[in-house]
């Protein structure tokens, strides 16, 4: 279970970043007072436009960043004080976390397995299962740099799941994938849900969220403007689909500013 309580994340901007973003403010509030709860057995979607703060929020949950204010607990462990325990029970997949292109999927799988302290036979069994599911057994000995984007993505997913985590955090899972590979990935996410895992994804593709997510939160400009099921989103906004619902929420948010 993940509990996010009143989390705010502020980036201090360097002078260079201020110039790049053409702002005079020396701070950027990326996430503003967000509270969420996500439970095992569901796919939870963090939705929002570019720059909304989705990645920032997920990085905080994954212990890579510390919230400026508020608290996040993962399975009851605090992400700041008990980071090692939190990391043991979750996997974080994002564009910014990459596998070394020089190594093969097989080598990387073993390497990370060992870092999680798993016995060799467990690692081997996990590898067989995951590599077969994602169809990467054929090129398990090739270097990552020799693989196509889709193959790379599949290999990354397999490697990040080496420790069979309870919680899988996936930042834009289908970004850059063709529909076939994207389907393979989303199907696996559903499989994980069936196995009782908690899957959190971020996306700005509403149709995808509509199909996949059991519950969702909409983040606009760092603030959480909605949290609930698809049904609740449609009811609250009187829209026919999630995309329309999103635009309605976006319009309301703009009005309040």
């Amino acid at each position, binding site marked *: 279970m993940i509990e996010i309580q009143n989390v705010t994340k502020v980036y201090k901007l360097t002078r260079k970043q201020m110039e790049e973003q053409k702002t005079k403010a020396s701070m950027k509030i990326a996430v503003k007072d967000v509270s969420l709860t996500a439970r095992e057995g569901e796919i939870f979607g963090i939705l929002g436009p570019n720059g909304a703060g989705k990645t920032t929020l997920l990085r905080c949950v994954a212990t890579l*960043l510390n919230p400026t204010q508020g608290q996040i607990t993962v399975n009851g462990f605090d992400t700041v004080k008990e980071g*090692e325990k939190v990391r043991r029970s979750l996997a974080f997949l994002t564009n910014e976390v*990459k596998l070394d292109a020089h190594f093969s999927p097989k080598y990387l799988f073993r390497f990370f397995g060992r870092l999680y302290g798993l016995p060799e036979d467990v690692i081997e069994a996990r590898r067989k299962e995951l590599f077969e599911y994602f169809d990467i057994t054929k090129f398990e000995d090739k270097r990552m740099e020799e693989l196509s984007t889709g193959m790379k993505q599949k290999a990354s997913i397999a490697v990040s799941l080496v420790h069979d985590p309870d919680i899988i955090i996936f930042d834009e899972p289908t970004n850059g994938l063709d529909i076939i590979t994207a389907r393979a990935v989303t199907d696996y996410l559903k499989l994980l849900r069936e196995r009782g895992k908690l899957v959190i994804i971020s996306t700005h593709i509403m149709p995808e969220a509509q199909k996949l997510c059991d519950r969702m939160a909409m983040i606009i400009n760092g603030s959480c403007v909605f949290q609930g099921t698809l049904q609740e989103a449609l009811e609250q906004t009187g829209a026919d689909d999630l995309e329309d619902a999103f635009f309605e929420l976006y319009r309301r948010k703009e009005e309040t500013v």
Partner: protein
Amino acid sequence: MKNVGIIMRKELYRVFSDKKMVFGLFIMPALVVIGLYLLMGIMMASIMKDWEEHEPTVLVYQAPESFQEYMDQVREDNEVHSADTVYKWHELPVGLYTIGDIRYHIIWLEDEQEIEAAKEDIYNGELDLILAFPKGFDQQIQNYQVGDIIPDIETYYNPSEDYSDNAREDVLAFILEGYRNQLLEKRLGSLEQLEIYTIDRDNEESVIQNDNKAQGKLFGSIIPYMITILLFAGAMSLGADSFAGEKERGTMAALLMTPIKRSTIVYGKLFALMILSGLSALIYGGAMIFAMPLLYRTLGAMTGQELNFPPSQMCMMLILIVTLVFLYVALIAVCSTLAKNMKEGSTFISPVYMIVMVIGVISMFRGEEVTNLQYLIPLYGPTMALKNVFTLDITLPGFLLATLSNLVIGALFAWLTAKMFHSEKIMFNA
């Protein structure tokens, strides 16, 4: 501790499974060193041959009769003065005189007006040397009374021309010295009176030295410099890649997502770096020791001496090198962890590299006078200690303090790196 090993093995595997890296790190340096030494040997040999083959042209102004006679007397060929004129300088005949192993082209000049033209030619490198005698040199010598002004022969030469420089040295040593002795002999009747004593006429055991120390002096001046520079150079690119490069590629974040301690990641990387740069330096050093005799052989001079080190000295050297590598690697880790990418990493490391180089250069010229406390100075002390191990001037407390300095400062920087690994500003630019 087990995790440190896992990280370290990954870093090592990463390098050794990459043919390009293995070549760049271990094979190319050896080839470059050997090639460079061969080239240096060939070039130096050809320069020396060129010097030997050059025949200096010397203009003698207002030569006294006694000097002309002396020259005719010592020349080893028997050609007649005017007949061996092969070419002219400003209408004046040039005579060839072989004295010692050198054939001089001699021009005898009386005309005061030509002397400026001659100086011009020295400047241009056309003439190698002018010997200008004062007027009435012979008379002055003959009528000399104690207290009179001693006649002076002036030389004009161009020190920026090797030929001119060499010509002056040769003429002073092989011609004027003999000429002076002849004049002295004439004045005093015999030179024996002047000798008073001789040095080491029959003593064949004159040279008493510690051969090891003599060799050490030779190697001691360059090898610590080379070793420190090579150790650092080896660690530099690897370190930039291992810390800044991994950050840039996003692979560091993957490591940080595992439940192992961040300090474990740092130590694993540091140890791998130490092994790699140590190995690289070892290969460099080996190539140098192999190539050194090659250089001497090409020069035809002394064959390479073998380093003959007492075991205690060897131990000290190894300990100093290992701890120094630790310090270098920790320094590099701090610099490249601060950097966002490889390029910035190299930029941050380069000032440290400069310092290491400067200290290396200083170590070539200083040494014995280092006090025990100075051995503690970070980087400087241990480099000096390394040199003094070679020259056998090291003291035990000095060695211990230098090692301590390496370990303490190295540990400090390693700790600092681990601290920085906890900063989200540094690790994620956030």
